[in-house]
């Protein structure tokens, strides 16, 4: 049993207009997302804005209620857990946010911020809590004397460490990291990434790492899921995804990321997608990517392909793609079949 199992997760935000606030439509932020996260691994979730990845993170933690689907943590149904069950679950699932300036209450001292969870869950005596906070601060590389200070006295990178310390307070098993380094200076990012990796080893943590920065995600993740308009279009082991992307969106995404190496940059073949990222309030019919796809066909307008493994893929069953014409890699070459991949159809042929 995986630590975290997500099945067909949906989150639709109603759009309310008019004086009477009638629901005129929905934003399909997350529309049928499924994946598993094994204990001890890092699952990366990449995508662009409107792709739904942040919403997945929040919904998995039940910070926002899901519209449909199942999330199972260690066998427990997160969506339908009772209040006391949820309180227990909260100790095992924690979150680190993106904005180091907004994620800490400016009017609370660090020791209260980091130790709040201990008070909420009634753990330890006052003295024990104090010691635990000091421990946590040391773990993330801060001075335990900093506990008496306020957030504004710290830099962005330090605040992010405080956020990490807060997430660790209850010895969680899973941490959802929502763009944890995007708001930090480039030279600080490596510090925090190394810290996260070390903590994962030392404390046996599992990460769900949400980010739009593909280089960062590649570095830290074991597996990566690519999201587009609320759906996962490809999911695979990290190295395989980056070397042998099967979905056209993944290819385009990878080719768009600038690499800090002038020779490589000059030699690269760029795939430039036309048009804008469509709004998740109005997703295209059929495959959500087909209007921007460089190789759309007739069948792509009929129905959204299912996420399935292609035969002969590098990672076998662990590499799944939602496309009728995924790229295949054989004998060092890349080719695309003429015939659509029938397994991806909603009702596959028997």
């Amino acid at each position, binding site marked *: 049993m995986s630590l975290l199992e997500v099945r067909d997760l949906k989150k639709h935000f109603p759009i309310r207009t008019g004086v009477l606030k009638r629901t005129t439509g929905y934003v399909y932020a997350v529309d049928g997302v499924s994946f598993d996260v094994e204990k001890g691994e890092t699952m990366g979730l990449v995508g662009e804005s409107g792709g739904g990845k942040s919403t997945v993170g929040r919904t998995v933690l039940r910070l926002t209620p899901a519209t449909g689907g199942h999330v199972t943590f260690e066998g427990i149904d997160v969506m339908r857990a009772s209040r006391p069950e949820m309180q227990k679950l*909260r100790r095992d699932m924690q*979150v680190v946010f993106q904005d180091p300036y*907004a994620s800490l209450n400016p009017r609370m001292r660090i020791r209260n911020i980091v130790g*709040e969870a201990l008070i909420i869950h009634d753990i330890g005596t006052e003295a024990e809590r104090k010691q635990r906070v000091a421990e946590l601060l040391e773990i993330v590389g801060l001075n335990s004397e900093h506990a008496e200070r306020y957030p504004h006295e710290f830099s962005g990178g330090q605040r992010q460490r405080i956020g990490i310390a807060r997430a660790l307070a209850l010895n969680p098993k899973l941490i959802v990291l929502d763009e944890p380094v995007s708001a930090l200076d480039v030279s600080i990012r490596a510090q925090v990434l190394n810290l996260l990796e070390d903590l994962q080893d030392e404390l046996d943590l599992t990460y769900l790492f949400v980010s739009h920065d593909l280089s960062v995600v590649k570095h830290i993740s074991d597996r990566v899921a690519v999201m587009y308009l609320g759906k996962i279009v490809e999911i695979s082991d990290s190295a395989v995804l980056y070397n042998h992307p099967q979905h056209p969106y993944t290819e385009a995404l990878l080719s768009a990321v600038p690499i800090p190496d002038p020779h490589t940059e000059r030699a690269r073949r760029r795939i430039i997608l036309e048009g804008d990222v469509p709004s998740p309030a109005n997703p295209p019919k059929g495959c959500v990517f087909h209007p921007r796809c460089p190789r759309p066909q007739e069948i792509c307008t009929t129905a959204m392909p299912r996420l399935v493994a292609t035969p002969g893929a590098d990672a076998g069953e662990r590499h799944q793609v939602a496309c009728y014409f995924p790229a295949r890699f054989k004998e060092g070459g890349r080719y695309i079949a003429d015939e659509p991949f029938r397994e991806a159809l909603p009702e596959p042929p028997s």
Partner: protein
Amino acid sequence: MPDWDERQKPERDVYGTQLTQAETIDARSSEEVIEERVEEATKPLGLWADTWRRLRRNRLALVGLGVIIVFLCIGTVETIFYEAHWHVRPGSDVSAANAPGYLAPYDPNEVNYALSPEGLGSPPSWSHPFGTDYLGRDVLSRTLIATRIAMLVGIIAVAIALTLGLLLGPVSGYYGGAIDTVIMRLADVFFAFPYILFVLLIMSVLGAGFQNVFIAIGILGWATFARISRGQVLSVKSMEYVEAARAQGAGDLRIIFRHVLPNSMAPVYVAMAMAIGGAIATEAALSYLGIGVQPPNSSWGLMIAESVNYLAAGNWWWLLFPSLALVATVFGFISFGNGLRDATDPKLKE
């Protein structure tokens, strides 16, 4: 040990390069100096220190603050001694002579016909700097003791309004939906009524008298605080630190009163300053109309009312001094409130 720990002084630098003995010694000394300098210089000002600095530059606000302080001092002293030494009941024979430590030079209620020839009082003189009124009472003493009334009204009435407002406002803003609509429409009703009329209405229900003034003003004042705090709560509740608290398992109550409310207070403080000024003015108006403080107690409004009839006879001092006191106090609160608002406005350029 992880290499991002900044307090470590390794023999190898972060790139794995072996530092020679000489370099280590040199590096250490300047590093210590630099760390120390950077450490002390990077402590930004506290949360209120910044506001105070900006406030200091606003002369009018400082004058207002000075007036407020004087006013509070007088009022506090009066209040401390009042209950002990002054029971204003008809027939009481307590007087200034046997009331040690009282701030007013004379018994404000001591009727002394000798000082009021023709029932018109005596003008300001060395022994009575503000003169005496038609009953021979010392105007200075009456003015001073009226300060107590004004202060009590200001503080207690606003405290009542604040409590009600800070209960309903944050709840309204945090939960939204039907609760929000109901509470805000209720506030609208309170706003729609002409203020004085509403106060008179309540006073006529409760009956005249000093304590009822607090209640009347307090009950009507909640709407302003509710609306202001609700507005702040709306923006604060979507801050990431609130989400973080939720992820830790905090319940709504804790979130509202520990996280949201403390960060919503800045404009509330401004409103408080203004409201106290307003409450004092309202009390004066009520007393003027005869339904506030009752004689023989003294309130500025009452003194003004009493003096109006005699103005034609040229007794300007009965009117002037209480009016000055009233205007100075209210103006003090309003200037300070304005200054506070300017000082806490992050967008105002320095």
